[in-house]
Each structure stands twice: as C-alpha cells, then as structure tokens.
C-alpha cells in the first residue's frame, strides 16, 4: 500500500495547492480527495507518528482544549501534527496528515494531536488507533445533524468497546454524567471542578443528561457548575460522580479576559493563570492538563503551557474593528452561548453587541437553539445590539423576548454594513461580537481583507 500511496499523496497535495491559488481555504479538500483515492490513507500516515496520536472530542471546547494541550506539549519539545484550523472530520485530519507527510514514508512530526467531530470519533478512532482519547462534554447541539445526546453517547460507548477502543487511555470529564459513565470500569483518568463557590442556584433550562444513563432515574445534583456539569449521584442505582485525579479548586473568573485556579494533579498542585475567560475555559484547561498528565508531562510544564495559550480566533480573541477594540466570542449551541453570556455578565456596565446568526450547514440549519440560550442574562445590560447574518431577524426577536428594549436592537442582515454600524458606537468601549461558526469565518475574512486581522490558517 505504501508504494502506491506516494503518487496519491502528491496528487492530493497538488489539488490542495490549486484550490488555494483560487483563493479557497482548502483545509479539508486535499484530505477528502486523498481518502477517496486511498480509503485507509489516514491509518497509513498516522502509523508514521513515532509517539502515536491523541484525540479530543466534545461538543464544546475541542479547538481550545487542543490549543492548550499543544502549547504544553510543544514547550516540552514534542513536534506535533495538529489540526489546529479546526477541520475535524476525516477530510480535515487527512489534510493535516498529508501536509506533514514527507517522502520515503516519513512524516514531519512525532505526536498527532487531533480534535475530532463527535460523529466522526468512532470511524477516526479505528483509523488513527490513538494512545489516548479525551472526552470533554456532551451538550445539545445542532440536533438536525447530531441527533440526540443519548445517540452520540451510545456511538462513543460502542467505539470504546472495540478492540482498538478498549486499548486507549481514556480521559473523561467527571462532572458530565453522560461522559463520565463511559469511563467507568476501565480505569479512566477523570478531571473536574471542586469549588462550591461556583455552584449555580438552579440548573440552566437547556441542561441535558439529568437522568441516569444506567437506570433512568433522575440524578440528585449537589452542585451544578455549567449546564448539566456538576456533582451528581443516582439515588436509585448508586452511580455517582467519579472523583477526579486532575481537578481545580479556588476558581477565580476575571471577566471576559482571564481566569485563575488551583490545579491539582497526582504530581502535586500549582496556581494556574489562564489568559482565557470563563468557567468553560477552566474546564478546557483541566482537560488539557489531564491529557498532558496522562502523557507524563511534568506539572510545571503544564502550568506554563496553559498560561502561555492565547485565545484562538473567535474564542475570546480581541481584534480591532475600525480602531475600536472588539472581542469575538463564538456562540454555536445553548451551553456554549450560556457560558459566553454568563462571562459577559461578569463585566460591569452596559454592553454593545454585534450578534451574527447564520443557518448554514456548519452552523446547523435549525436556529431554534437560540431560544434555549439564556440571553435574559444580558437583558437590561444592553446599550445597543446590532443583529446580522442569514437569520438576523430571529436573533433580534430572541433579544426582544429576552427583555432587551426593541429600540436598542438594530436589524442589519448584511454583515459588512452591520460591522460598520456596530463599530461606530462608543469608541472607548469594547464591542462584543457573538457570531455562529460560519459567521465567525466570514467575519474573519472581512477583517483580514480590511487589514485588521491576520490570516493564520496554515
């Protein structure tokens, strides 16, 4: 197979170059082509990685968790093959491997670090034969594409029970009942939060997984931290949150910019200063710390790597729009949006927002989810909200019903015009931009064209 692989690699690489010349991003095109010509190309190329590979899957936080883990691992001198642009299905991962592959069966990199789409985990697990798999969380997301949470958990469970799956080192979020259950009876390394000061007064409306995966009885929650993440037990069958080996105490959330916490691992404890905001990023940092702990990375290196991770584009990154500071906070499902809204609510005063709601395939065609997100958290705190995107009106309506005065809401479907109008507000104040996934990409392209952001697709 390897003999025949080389010309196919060259062909796929050429197609990618051609597409880039035409101005396409082409993050997954060459890989798709390669897999069509050689169905097991991913397996063949991954086998060249000296240290094997690690996979990260979750509804929310895949890209940021992988970026945090990359920062830690690279600090230790490990050279990574990493799908950092976030193309996380077979085509994207094949493209990443293709870009790193060299002649005579070599590859430029020692360890594969791949974020993987939830629905692709089973197939990619079989191809990549990873040494470790990290499962972060499962929230309701794009139901028209992903289906019900139970269905995804079931697919993951079956994949982990295959011979390849049974061999991997499994890392699971102890605070997510659905995810934690997949690690029982197989020595998973768990991570979680241990800080009662973060407990929410009630579970968010959109919370899922409120019933025991084993017996169907409702869980008793002693603490809810985020969505359905927290400390829970089933009074009926006795299953309870596993106690995590990697955990955070003394969490301090510092508005939209940063967070600090005390990190505990089997190797000891240390103070972590994250340049990323919100409890959701504390979870991402814990996940990355757990993965690196499983890879025997020293605690000090973990702490430094976490500290030095800057926000990825659209994940709380700060840019300048027409001379005004703007922070871009991706929203794509209720749980993720709620954490963004909760983080924004930590900042005092009235906010100026630009919300961009698209309904393209990568966003999910169904925009119902915005009614599950708690925009009420910001009602009364909005000075002005410009709503844009293919479904701008639905977002405007959501804000109106959340309690934002209609006079403060402007409906501007066209994105360039919406950006100009939004940027023209109080210039000293930051503008908060809340885009869905394809809206974030469009926004990025627009800012690059205007010379206000740099293109960092590799």
């Amino acid at each position: 197979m390897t003999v025949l692989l080389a010309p196919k690699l060259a062909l796929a690489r050429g197609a990618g170059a051609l597409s880039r010349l035409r101005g396409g991003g082409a993050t997954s095109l060459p890989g798709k082509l390669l897999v069509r010509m050689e169905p097991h190309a991913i397996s063949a190329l991954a086998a060249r990685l000296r240290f094997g590979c690690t996979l990260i899957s979750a509804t929310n936080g895949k890209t940021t968790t992988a970026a945090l883990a990359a920062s830690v691992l690279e600090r230790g001198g490990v050279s990574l093959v990493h799908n950092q642009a976030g193309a996380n299905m077979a085509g994207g991962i094949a493209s990443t491997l293709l870009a790193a592959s060299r002649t005579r069966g070599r590859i430029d990199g020692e360890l594969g670090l791949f974020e993987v789409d939830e629905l692709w985990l089973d197939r990619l697990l079989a191809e990549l034969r990873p040494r470790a798999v990290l499962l972060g969380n499962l929230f309701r997301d794009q139901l028209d594409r992903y289906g019900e949470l139970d269905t995804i958990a079931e697919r993951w469970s079956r994949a982990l029970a295959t011979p390849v799956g049974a061999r991997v080192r499994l890392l699971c979020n102890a605070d997510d009942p659905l995810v934690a259950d997949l690690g029982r009876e197989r020595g998973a390394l768990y991570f979680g939060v241990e800080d009662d000061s973060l407990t929410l007064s009630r579970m968010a409306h959109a919370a899922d997984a409120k019933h025991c995966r084993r017996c169907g009885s409702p869980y008793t929650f002693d603490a809810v931290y985020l969505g359905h993440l927290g400390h829970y037990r089933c009074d009926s069958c006795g299953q309870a949150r596993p106690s995590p080996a990697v955990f955070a105490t003394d969490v301090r959330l510092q508005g939209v910019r940063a967070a600090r916490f005390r990190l505990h691992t089997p190797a000891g404890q240390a103070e972590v200063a994250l340049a990323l905001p919100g409890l959701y990023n504390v979870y991402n940092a814990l996940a990355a710390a757990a993965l690196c702990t499983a890879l025997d990375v020293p605690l000090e290196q973990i702490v430094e790597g976490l500290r030095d991770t800057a926000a990825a584009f659209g994940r709380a990154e700060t840019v300048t729009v027409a001379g005004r500071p703007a922070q871009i906070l991706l929203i794509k499902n209720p749980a993720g949006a709620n954490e963004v809204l909760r983080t924004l609510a930590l900042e005092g005063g009235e906010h100026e927002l630009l919300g961009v709601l698209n309904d393209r395939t990568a966003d999910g065609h169904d925009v119902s989810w915005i009614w599950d997100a708690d925009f009420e958290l910001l009602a009364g705190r909005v000075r002005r909200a410009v709503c844009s995107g293919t479904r701008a009106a639905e977002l405007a309506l959501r804000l109106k019903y959340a309690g934002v005065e209609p006079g403060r809401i402007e409906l501007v479907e066209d994105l360039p015009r919406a950006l100009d109008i939004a940027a023209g507000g109080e210039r000293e104040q930051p503008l908060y931009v809340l885009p869905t996934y394809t809206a974030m990409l469009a926004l990025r392209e627009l800012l690059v064209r205007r010379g206000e952001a740099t293109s960092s697709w590799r």
Partner: protein
Amino acid sequence: MTPSPSLRVCALYPDLMNIYADRGNLLVFERRCAWRGIGFELSASSLGDSLDGAAHDLYYIGGGQDRDQILCAEDLHEHKHLALHEAASRGAVVLGVCGGYQLLGGSYVLEGDTLAGVELLPLHTVREPAPRLTGNLAIEVLLDGSPRVLAGFENHGGRTHLDAGCEPLGRVLKGHGNDGRSGYEGARAGNVIGTYLHGPLLPKNAWFADWLIATALGVDHSELAPLDDSFERAAHESARRAAGLPAA
C-alpha cells in the same frame, strides 16, 4: 366580552419535553399577554404529578429524546389521560409539538415498542428505519377560513398517519410534514392541535400565537390589542425564505 383576567398555561413535562427550545413558545405566550395587560400564569406538571383538567386554558407539550418520550407516554397514560380529555372537551387549547404531537395520537410504534397515546387526535405514528425528516418546513393552514402560512423547522423520525376523518393542521408548501408523502402536516380536532413545526414555532408565527391566546381565552382574535410586530414579521419572512417560499 372582556378577556378573562389571565391566560393560565400548563406546561407538561417542561423538564423533559423541551428538546427544541420549547420554552420559546411559552415565553411568547407570557410576553404577548404582558404587553397587552393580560395576566399570565404558568404551571408545570411532570412525571408523577397529577393534572387538573379544569384549571388551565392552554396545555402545552413539547418534544423530547426517545428515552424521555417513553417515560412521558407511560406517565400521561397513568396520571393525565382523563384530565386532558376533560380539558379538551371544555374547549381548552391543547398544543402538542413534535414528540408531544406524537403522544396526542392513538399510538407511537418505536423500534418494536408501542407507546399508547392520549387519543385526543385520531392518528398513529410509526418510527421508520428510513432517515429522519429534517429541514425547514412551511405549511398553509385554514384556521379562520382564510389561508395563512406557518413556517419553521421539523426534525422527526416518526411518520404520522392520520386516520380517516382526521383533519390535518395544514397542507405542506415546503418540507416533509406528517410522513413525507401525504402532503399534510399536523392535525387538529377542535382546539387540540398537533404539529411537527418544532420548538420556537410561535415567535416567528406571532399571528398563530395570538390565535392560540384568543382561542384559549375564549375571545375573538380582533379583541386582542395590536402589538408592534416588526421583528416578528421579519423573522417570519426569514423563516419563509429559509423554507424556500417567496416573500409574502
């Protein structure tokens, strides 16, 4: 006739049957009443709770995951069947959306299991191994004689078949509807209404929300004070466009 002082809504299983942001529909009732000075009372009745068929003007049941839907089907049968029939017979509105719609029928056959329905709508639903029926959906309904459009989104594995004589809610303009073949969507028997237009169907079909409010209160639609619905109309237009319908 003056409107009754309050719209009394009972949400059935709001903790379980809420998968497509069903609370958006409840929020629309609450806000549109408040903006008009009509009172609004929301109660909930979940697993194991009793249900008062005389205490509410509108009963709402949304969509849920299979596992939750099975739990609710059993509970409906055991604890709420009679109350819902009592409510329907005195003219209260019963609105079932997606999974909730399926449970208002006679039965739902789901991978070998047959769930007994509430039997308020003469129809039955069968889960087929074929792909789910998913996408933007627009239907034409005749509620007060003149045709109007409801636009939204559907996502269901079950195919619903209307029994002879069962009145559909509307005719499919774009999308799949009840079973992807009949050209019909939803069902209606008096003030009992079921539809696959899921989750927040009411924000972008504000005229339908008002029709439900007026019907539940027992007043004529024209008696409801008009509201500034410019965002509602824009969202309706955008949902129609998403479904592939020309602008109204």
